[in-house]
């Protein structure tokens, strides 16, 4: 059952991911990416990380992709305005990433991990559990994240603000 679910989600994820890359229309790409994200969210649920799954949906599907779509629409890129990329370049890209895949897959051969004590903690992905780790061990990174968000906020606002003296430059 779960394995079948896994296969389905994996298939969906990879298919949609490929469609993201090969769709002519950017908006379609965005939509396929959203589907991919949902497939990944499904994987999270399979992996007992419900909280993460929901957060994933909220953050990626709910915020990030909406922003993408927003920008796409704002810039009105619904026609495929992408110029033709030379075949050689595409070929090179395909070769490069293919090589990367092969390397990654090859490196996975003979996977033997340290066998952790397999006491299954079912509530690993609960808010409580995650919160505990986040606010004890990972407190500093958590706080640092605020600096990060602050920086990105200032950056985005600065770039977004229209220039007052447009004629000077």
């Amino acid at each position: 059952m779960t394995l079948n679910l896994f296969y389905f989600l994996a298939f969906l994820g990879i298919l949609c991911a490929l469609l993201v890359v090969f769709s002519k229309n950017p908006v379609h790409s965005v939509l396929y990416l959203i589907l991919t994200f949902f497939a990944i969210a499904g994987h999270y649920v399979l992996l007992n990380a419900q909280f993460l799954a929901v957060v994933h949906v909220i953050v990626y599907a709910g915020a990030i992709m909406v922003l993408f779509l927003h920008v796409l629409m704002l810039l009105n890129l619904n026609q495929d305005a992408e110029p033709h990329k030379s075949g050689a370049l595409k070929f090179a890209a395909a070769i490069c990433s293919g090589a990367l895949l092969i390397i990654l897959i090859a490196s996975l051969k003979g996977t033997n991990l340290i066998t952790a004590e397999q006491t299954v903690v079912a509530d690993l992905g609960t808010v409580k559990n995650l919160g505990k780790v986040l606010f004890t061990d990972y407190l500093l990174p958590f706080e640092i994240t605020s600096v990060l968000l602050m920086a990105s906020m200032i950056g985005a606002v600065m770039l977004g603000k229209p220039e007052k003296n447009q004629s000077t430059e």
Partner: protein
Amino acid sequence: MNSLYVICGLGLISLIAELANFKKQLIPIFIVGILAAIGLAVMDWGTSLHYFSDMAIFDNVALSFSILICATAAFWFLIANDYFHTETHITDQAALVIFVMAGGVIMASFNNMAMLFLGIEILSLSLYALAGSRKLNLFSNEAAFKYFLMGSFATGFLLMGIALVYGATGQFHLDKIAASIAAQPELPGFFYAGVILIIVGMAFKISAVPFHFWAPDVYEGAPTLITSLMATVVKTAAFAAFFRMVWYCFPAVEQTWLLPLQVITVATLVLANVTAVFQSKVKRMLAYSSVGHAGYILLALTTGGTSSAGTIFFYLAAYSAATLIAFAILNRLELATNFAEGSFNGLFKKSPFLAVAMTVSLLSMAGIPPLAGFFGKYLVFVQAISQGYVGLVVVAVITSLIGVYYYFGVIISMFFKEPAGGEIQVSSGLKLILSLLVLVLLAMGILPDLFLPL
């Protein structure tokens, strides 16, 4: 850690300045704050404190790099003083620069992959925005954009590497990863893939060949002062992080990454220096030279083991000081000549002071004694030779000769070519700062012991 608090606080102050309208006093406040941060870092010297369940460790290496970052930033602010009077989004940009510093300090002191990641991102995100801060300038836009795309792409690799390493060891802490590596008789194959991916990701960040191709564009496109920030503070932070990463975390699997890194080193040295020769714009030349210097630091990194921190520190300090001078002057000239090409022509006649300062800076970068750059190179070479990497050193020597070629191109044009345009006035403030930096270069060259804490 205390200095990190101070720096983050400065970021907030910068934002408050916008609200409370004390922008004029911002730079002095920053300088004082940064000095305080440096002071706090100095007070922690030798304590090697661990913070927040080992998320950050401020040992001497971290402290020294933090101090370097702070000091460079302080000089940067002094140089940028004028800039901050003319630009519009003063407080935003100032805050972003402060955050760059914060990211740098985090990168210098991380002990957990999460900290590294966040540090890199704080630094990078701020820089993406800063690179594009000249919003109506297409070059600036393009620089920001390229930097952003490449930076995120690199982050992807870095993260994949971290994930794979986590998969193999079950840890994010550097020391625990190292322990886990030591404890496991046989590591899974993807662990090595992870290490390589991390290296690739970091190589992007330090712009080592062949992951450097974004650097010249970005350096050229970004506003000159921001470029100087990238070339100094960012480079320092990136190397500090790189050093920690490879020598605190992966020393046991040296055989995996050392050779690739050395190949990268040679490629960086040769390609960057050779390409720099063919650049017509000084800014672009400096960009390539910056990549080239990354090669020398990489040489120190790969040959020195854990003891290479001192060498890296010294080299970075020397390089930062020289780069600050060069970019400050470049910036001044851009303002004076309105971004005309060949603004360095006949600078000696237009402003002898700037010409001499620039010469000192370039000589230092070229590694001419008795300036700091020479001693930096010297330390690198000594270290490499003592570890038996004579071949690498010979390559480095040849490339540094090539370096002389392009640095002297600028010097020749300053002293030899006919100037266009009238004299260039230099404010006494800038003069003072530049003189100070020149003195630093001289002092580092003549009394390097003072600057070799590690």
